């Protein structure tokens, strides 16, 4: 018989007081678990010491091989013949496979079919994997795939959105959301305007590229270690390509070196290929994408080409609008249906559109299949209406902020979206007014006008833009989560949940929630890999939902165990439930105080189950795509940013001088982590709209295929003066976990303030009389040409 571990007995004299100074907003000290306080990231100490293990850092397995794939060099072509003899003969090559060698499904499309794991007779974009190699080293595998001789019969390639629209070349059918009669309202309005905008895509540029290791198991299954936001989908797709049941595939996901949506569906192909090669060779196979291959072979944020026609009154208030959003989906559906839907759902951003028709097209182009990226189409949808705000303002000669304010959703009326969801608990006016004041917007606006009057070359601009972002997966069934909590006999707790850690601090927050439930120190709770054998059928960690869903599921699991402990205490010590308290790492039962560890042992000896699952599904949500009506979102996350920029009218160069942000995160579970999310999202959003330019050539080849040619923000791009605040005392009025609000995606769109401020600076060149057109990304080149266009208009 095993004896129990020695544990610290409760010392009732030693009352632990909570001295953490990071309590925000004067919230009550909610206890040792630390919900509401700035706990450091659970991996921080390991990350700074180089001790945090990513997939590529795992010790090599005996006999481990390395994979690489041969890529299409044509955007659209039939494969006439394939000579892989030189590949097979190359140094170090152990195995070469094509789609013929796939025992199960050959299509790994995540929602709709269309993504062959390896090309089936034809290729649809440059970079498409055609065959795969397993070799004894990473370099040998990469060298070998270059030796293939593939003959193509070229087919006509669609490489522009305009061409796809003309040919009605779509990956999914178009869809329209409608409220009222927009055409009549536009005609009847005092003023009409129309315009169009090209919104660029975005490379995820997670610092850790795509990587998976597949290790064959003794019973014909596969263990997968992957950098994926969706382990359960990797499990399913690996099982399908191998034609084995799900229970033979185990997926382990400890942490990602960044995801941002790029590892939601598009981590799976590399895991599948590694598994196929491992299956053939019966050896472990690692597939790590070299950076350039990653940039060429994985999808990006969808570029969009949007247009609008709006009718508005003399105050600039919208009376009716028609918006068309055209997403460049690449060659396959992937997640594009839901992404273009979300662009449509967010075509209003924070504004009441009144009579509105919003149409979304899912254009099929012969490029890599574009995919989820922070905001999931929402940002591209919002760009149109933010452009409308600036356009109306300059048309009427007003400050764009006034136009934004006059169009905000109301609280009692003017509060229904174009998809007929009522905007409840609307705090947009308060957020904007508060930020306008704290950022000193009006005084700075004046100072900027004065600066511009005396500065012939450099011009400054300022803009305030809000964000209202719908929280929930718009695909209803994904809004569920599971968790598994164990309490051990030394009083330590192990937590598993279905979410995956990509740096956003999910594990930290969920551990805080579990620790809070038991009133123990947060470091009592260990949270290791997300594993499909611990928590099954999980949803992707996406849509900003990680904490909302998994936090609730983990809380439920902890509550179940806690209730068992209370019931046990009542029975054993003959007390009422009200006399059992969890406090300061102790369990207080009537007059007696036990340490949590001590009481866990007593419960174990009393044969109480100290392990439980937990489950959560989001309430209230529904959407009927047939009518375009419903409540797709449980709630909205809101925020606003003011950015001030300076531009050079001779070169188009610019800098963001200052940014103030006010974001509503509800009752923050961890303010430091939330602020980190906001700052990072803002800078990433700014990068999307400024320096991050994807360039394809006329053959459909990606030219911006490495970090030397694709420029994400670097340290000097961060605003010199960067002030981020959380809306104080703002518990979510929906019953989310501790009344917090999602934070991953919403602040991304605050980057729009920079784009709008650059336009403001450009407009100053002609005393704000000419409305600059500025497609994105607003590279120095685009900014210079916009300046020149305004100068030319001035001359007329």
């Amino acid at each position, binding site marked *: 018989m095993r004896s129990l571990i020695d544990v610290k007995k409760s010392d009732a004299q030693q009352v632990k007081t909570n001295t953490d100074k990071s309590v925000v907003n004067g919230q009550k000290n909610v206890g040792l678990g630390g919900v509401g306080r700035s706990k450091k990231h659970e991996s921080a100490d390991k990350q700074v010491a180089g001790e945090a293990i990513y997939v590529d850092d795992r010790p090599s397995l005996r006999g481990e091989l390395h994979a690489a794939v041969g890529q299409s060099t044509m955007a659209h072509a039939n494969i006439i013949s394939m000579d892989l003899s030189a590949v097979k003969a190359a140094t170090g090559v152990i195995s070469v496979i094509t789609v013929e060698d796939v025992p199960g499904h050959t299509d790994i499309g995540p929602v709709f079919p269309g993504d062959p794991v390896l090309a089936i007779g034809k290729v649809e974009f440059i970079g498409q994997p055609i065959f795969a190699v397993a070799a004894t080293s990473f370099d040998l595998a990469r060298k070998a795939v270059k030796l293939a001789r593939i003959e193509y019969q070229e087919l006509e390639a669609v490489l522009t959105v305009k061409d796809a629209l003309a040919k009605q070349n779509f990956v999914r059918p178009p869809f329209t959301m409608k409220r009222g009669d927009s055409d009549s309202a536009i005609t009847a309005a005092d003023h009409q305007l129309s315009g169009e905008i090209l919104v660029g895509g975005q490379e995820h540029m997670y610092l850790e590229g795509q990587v998976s290791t597949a290790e064959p198991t003794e019973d014909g299954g596969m263990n997968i270690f992957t950098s994926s936001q969706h382990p359960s989908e990797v499990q399913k797709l690996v099982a399908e390509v191998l034609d084995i049941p799900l229970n033979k595939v185990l997926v382990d996901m400890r942490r990602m070196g960044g995801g941002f949506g790029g590892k939601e569906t598009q981590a799976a192909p590399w895991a599948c290929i590694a598994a196929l090669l491992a299956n053939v060779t019966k050896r472990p196979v690692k597939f790590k994408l070299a950076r350039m291959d990653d940039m060429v072979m994985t999808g990006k944020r969808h570029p969009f080409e949007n247009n609008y026609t709006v009718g508005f009154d003399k105050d600039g208030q919208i009376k009716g609008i028609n918006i068309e959003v055209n997403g460049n989906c690449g060659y396959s559906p992937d997640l594009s249906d839901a992404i273009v839907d979300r662009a449509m759902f967010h075509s209003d951003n924070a504004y009441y559109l009144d009579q509105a028709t919003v149409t979304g097209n899912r254009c099929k182009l012969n490029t890599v299949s574009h995919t989820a990226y922070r905001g999931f189409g929402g940002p591209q949808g919002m760009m149109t209406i933010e452009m409308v705000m600036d356009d109306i303002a300059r048309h009427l000669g007003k400050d764009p902020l006034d136009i934004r304010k006059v169009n905000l959703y109301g609280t009692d009326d003017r509060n229904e979206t174009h998809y007929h969801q009522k905007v409840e608990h609307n705090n947009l006016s308060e957020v904007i007014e508060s930020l306008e004041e704290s950022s000193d917007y009006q005084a700075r606006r004046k100072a900027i006008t004065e600066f511009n009057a005396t500065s012939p070359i450099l011009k400054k601009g300022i803009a305030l833009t809000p964000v209202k972002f719908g929280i929930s997966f718009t695909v209803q069934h994904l809004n569920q989560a599971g968790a598994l909590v164990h309490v051990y006999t030394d009083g330590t707790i192990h937590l598993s949940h279905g979410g995956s850690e990509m740096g956003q601090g999910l594990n930290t927050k969920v551990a805080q929630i579990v620790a809070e439930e038991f009133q123990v120190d947060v470091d009592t709770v260990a949270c290791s890999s997300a594993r499909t054998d611990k928590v099954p059928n999980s949803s992707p960690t996406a849509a900003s939902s990680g904490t909302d869903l998994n936090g609730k599921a983990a809380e439920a699991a902890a509550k179940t165990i806690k209730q068992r402990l209370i019931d046990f205490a009542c029975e054993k010590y003959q007390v009422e439930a009200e006399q059992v308290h969890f406090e300061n790492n102790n369990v207080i039962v009537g007059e007696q105080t036990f340490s949590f560890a001590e009481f866990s042992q007593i419960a174990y000896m009393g044969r109480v189950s100290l392990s439980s699952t937990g489950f959560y599904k989001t309430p209230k949500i529904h959407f009927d795509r047939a009518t375009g009506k419903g409540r797709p979102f449980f709630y909205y996350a809101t925020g606003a940013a003011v950015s001030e920029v300076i531009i050079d009218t001779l*070169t188009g160069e610019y800098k963001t001088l200052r940014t103030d942000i006010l974001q509503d995160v509800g009752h923050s579970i961890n303010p430091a982590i939330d602020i980190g999310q906001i700052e990072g999202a803002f800078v990433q959003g700014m990068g999307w709209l400024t320096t991050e330019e994807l360039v394809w050539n006329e053959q459909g080849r990606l030219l911006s295929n490495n970090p030397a040619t694709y420029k994400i923000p*670097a*340290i000097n791009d961060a605003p010199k003066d960067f002030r981020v605040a959380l809306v104080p005392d703002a518990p979510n009025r929906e019953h989310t976990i501790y009344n917090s609000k999602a934070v991953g995606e919403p602040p991304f769109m605050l980057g729009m303030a920079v784009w709008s401020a650059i336009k403001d600076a450009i407009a100053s060149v002609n005393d704000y009389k000419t409305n600059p057109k500025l497609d994105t990304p607003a590279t120095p080149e685009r900014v210079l040409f916009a300046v020149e266009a305004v100068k030319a208009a001035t001359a007329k």
Partner: protein
Amino acid sequence: MVANTIKFLLNNELVKIENLDPNTTVLQYLREEQFKSGTKEGCASGDCGACTVVLAELDTENSGQLTYKSINSCITFVGNLHGKQLITVEDLKEGAQLHHAQQTIVDNHGSQCGFCTPGFVMSSFALHKQNNTPNRAEVLEALAGNLCRCTGYRSIIEAAMTSSKDAREDSFAKHYQATVAALTELEQLPTPALTGNGHNYIAPKNIDELATELTNEPKSTLVAGGTDLALSVTQNLATIDKLVYVGNVAELTTIEETETEIIIGSALPYSEFIDTLHHYYPDLGEMIERIGSKQVRNTGTLGGNVGNASPIGDMPPALIALGATMTLHVQGQERTILVEDYFVDYKKTVLKPSEFIKSIQIPKPTAGQTLKLYKISKRIDDDISAVLAAFFIEQEITENGQKITNVRLAFGGMAAIPKRSPVTEAILLGNSLTKALVAQAKEALTTDFQPMSDVRASDKYRMTVAQNLIEKCYIELQSANARKVIETRVVNHA
């Protein structure tokens, strides 16, 4: 005498490498040979800084001091480690105690996904070893070569700005004298070399050894920092048969000043001469701060930037505008040519087989001369120029006002080679700089150049911006004499 060995300190341990392919990068060596996975591969092209490690070296003045330099391990060949101390992120912790450069990132919530973090830690560590109370500008300069996709940088900047009282007391400080002694001993060793997988590497110690080596093996590839060359290996999967490292050649790693010139050894890293050039030509110093990143400037050299004859190198237009010369050496024979005459066509130069660049001579400024430099790129930090404009103008005051007596307008990114603009220069020469003259010069530039479109910029942008830079230069020159200075550069708003 040549020893077929590379010896260096891995933290405090003396390591000997024999029989390893010299095409191996330091990053590959750390991860695959030493099983140290703390140093990350983000791009393998020197663009992201995730692989940053620190090299401690005896400083060039031989004063018994160590300098700590951040480098990109992903584009540094393993042979370059010889005689140095290699410090990686795993070496910073003392027992359970995080180093200042680590603890400050934890305290400021400066790591999220954590993949870039070891690189930031090492860049911050190198900075604090050289300067334990850095200001914001110094922090930005030191960290501009490290990309983070999660944090938005604010927390990392604050971490790195936290002064480090204990940087002088860390484990490296405790081992300082022992390290100096060990490195001094390594310096005395015979010429290091490395052979593996049929490929060779040698690091000559003086110019005669180098010249002989190149005469015997004219097909050798010269490598200094390797910040460009290594990409052929990591990105294009090439293999280099014979590498000759010039970073140890004494005569190539000096900086000297005469009354009229600054003479910079071709293998001297930027970080060793940036201050001198900044002193004489502030615009040049500022521009060099935007060449690559700190990691690149710590190993990259003038010889490399000029030698590879890229049309988008930033130094060649500046050197051409300055009228700089270069000394070429082959087996004891030397010739000095204008940098301008070095470039023949795209990646083609006048360099003969076995010949190498010994030094670059930059004239010191005299009264009436102005150098204006403009680097135009999508991003301010660590980006390759769309256009690099270098304007050297000499004016003389005559009774009719100022007159241009000497002018060299050189551009990068506008043609297949870095190139002057003869037609435009002819318009300016001998005339007074006026608005009307500038308009003519802008027009003339279209005769001098027909730039191309690529991933960085369109032909139209390149031409427009090049023309506008002439206008900007004019405004700046006018403004310098005016009572109210007109602001013209956004980069000054860092």
